[in-house]
């Protein structure tokens, strides 16, 4: 805990330990953020720009590609993050049972996808989900579908494919956080609840979930940021297509800056949309977490 007062030497040590990190953060984070804020009010192509006031913001509202990228990104966020968090929580709860056999095996298997490089798994998904590919064959053999699904060509299924891919890649990662936190909960609490006749569902909902609230909040915010920045998967599996159905904000910024004639001001404006979304959503998640605690 905080000592009453640090000596002069300790004050100097304190700053010395954190100084390298602070200098780097200043150069590679604070400066770029301020620069992009200033830039988002500039208009022009390449390195020739001039002050344009709110021109870029007006352009945003009239840009159908931006609106589409925004809607796509929000769809990915709203559908994918809850599914993944719930799956990770359920898997962690099941694996936290000490009487379960093969726990280590299951845990390793479910965590394994995090080990793959984004490129490896993008390639794998692209080839597995080809129209004549192995996934359609399996689903048809199991009588789940009658005709092959056009995963990569159909705007709806392309979105589903991206959601499946991200969920596959990141569920195990989140699960490890929950597993670690669950192992810190005293087992006797569960025993007492069991003796009092609480069902498995009640033990999960009234013990595990409240105890894990800080970790759930942390992982939800991290996943929200990750999904709002979605780039690698869409760029490698679908290239944003078909007809922009999987275009995300990050991919659009990339296209604006590095593919088309660079429009730094406008792409800075789009990136501030992401910053604002992250800020609003993180704040909302904090508020929701706090409300629940007040109820309990």
């Amino acid at each position, binding site marked *: 805990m*905080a000592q009453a007062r*640090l000596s002069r030497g300790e004050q100097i040590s*304190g700053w010395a*330990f*954190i100084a*390298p*990190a*602070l200098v780097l*953060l200043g150069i*590679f*984070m*604070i*400066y*770029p*953020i301020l*620069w992009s804020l200033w*830039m988002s009010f500039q208009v022009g192509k390449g390195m020739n720009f001039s002050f344009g006031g709110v021109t870029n913001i007006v352009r945003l509202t009239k840009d159908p590609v931006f609106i589409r990228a925004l809607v796509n990104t929000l769809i990915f966020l709203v559908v994918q993050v809850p599914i993944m968090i719930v799956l990770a929580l359920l*898997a962690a709860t099941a694996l936290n049972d000490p009487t379960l056999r093969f726990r280590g*095996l*299951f845990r390793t*298997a*479910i965590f394994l*996808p995090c*080990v*793959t*490089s*984004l*490129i*490896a798994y993008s*390639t*794998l*998904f692209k080839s*597995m989900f*080809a129209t*004549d*590919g*192995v*996934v359609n064959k*399996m689903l048809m053999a199991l009588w789940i579908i009658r005709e092959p699904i056009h995963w990569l060509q159909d705007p709806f299924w392309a979105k589903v494919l991206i959601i499946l891919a991200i969920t*596959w890649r990141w569920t195990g990662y989140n699960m490890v956080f929950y597993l*670690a*936190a669950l192992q*810190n909960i005293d087992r006797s609490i569960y025993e007492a609840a069991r003796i009092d006749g609480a069902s*498995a569902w009640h033990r999960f909902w009234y013990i595990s979930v409240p105890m894990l609230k800080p970790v759930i909040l942390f992982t939800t*915010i991290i996943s929200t*940021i990750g999904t709002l*920045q979605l*780039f*690698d998967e869409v760029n*490698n599996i679908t290239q944003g297509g078909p007809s922009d159905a999987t275009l995300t904000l*990050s991919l659009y910024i*990339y296209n604006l800056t590095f593919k088309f004639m660079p429009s*730094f001001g406008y*792409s*800075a404006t789009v*990136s*501030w949309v992401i*910053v604002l979304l*992250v800020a609003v959503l*993180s704040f909302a998640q904090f508020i929701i977490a706090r409300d629940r605690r007040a109820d309990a």
Partner: protein
Amino acid sequence: MRPLAFASRALTYALLSLAAFVSVFPFFWMLVGATNLSSDVVIGKASFGDQLFANAARFFATVDAPRIFWNSAFIAVVGTVLTLAISSLAGYGFEMFRSRFRERVFGLMLLLLSIPFAALMVPLFVLLSSYKLVGTVAAVVLPGIASIFIIFYFRQATKAFPSELRDAARVDGLNELQIFLYIYLPTMRSTYAAAIIIVFMANWNNYLWPLIMLNKPELKTATLVISALTSSYTPDYGVILFGTILATLPTLVIFFLLQRRFVEGMLGAVK
């Protein structure tokens, strides 16, 4: 066992097995695909073929494998070492030398955690190109080494570092840096192991930033080159899947070597 308990236990095993199958199947697919012709991969042939050596030969003929894997390894190792050094020093400093002002700095830093990389990409590109750093390894590595996430992680883990150890070391006449190097570092091995896994994987797999920064072919990483193979009009999946096996091996090996410590390290950080 009561019937209901038995049924729920059976359901748990069934669902976990399904999850394990879904998680592992793509790895199996990667191995199978590397032994088959590209035309067999896209029609979902799920049995091993005899094309492994042909695919391998074409892979090594198409890409300069030693070069791209050396580039990847160099960037990943340098990035990991620097990130761990800078970020663990800071995490330790924030936790061990608390002052009101530094707490404010820490709080501000956590706010920065919510700034997505996409927002920094454009100004970083302009900044680095004005210093003629675009197309260098430094430009790929430098922006990531003060990682707020890893600083936060080390600060959390440092809470479990026994202060008696530090007091004893002070009595023995060690200065603060020596305490960090000779007492803290060896004590926190598990914490570092978990951090190595996270940071090494992130660096090894990094795609977007190297894609922007590394425009010269001789600096391109395995991730970039293999990704470029997939975007051709008729991708040769046998060759590509062989390449992805090679690209996945290092992270797989590191994970299995450090797995036990990884779980311990995560436990320490969440406490």
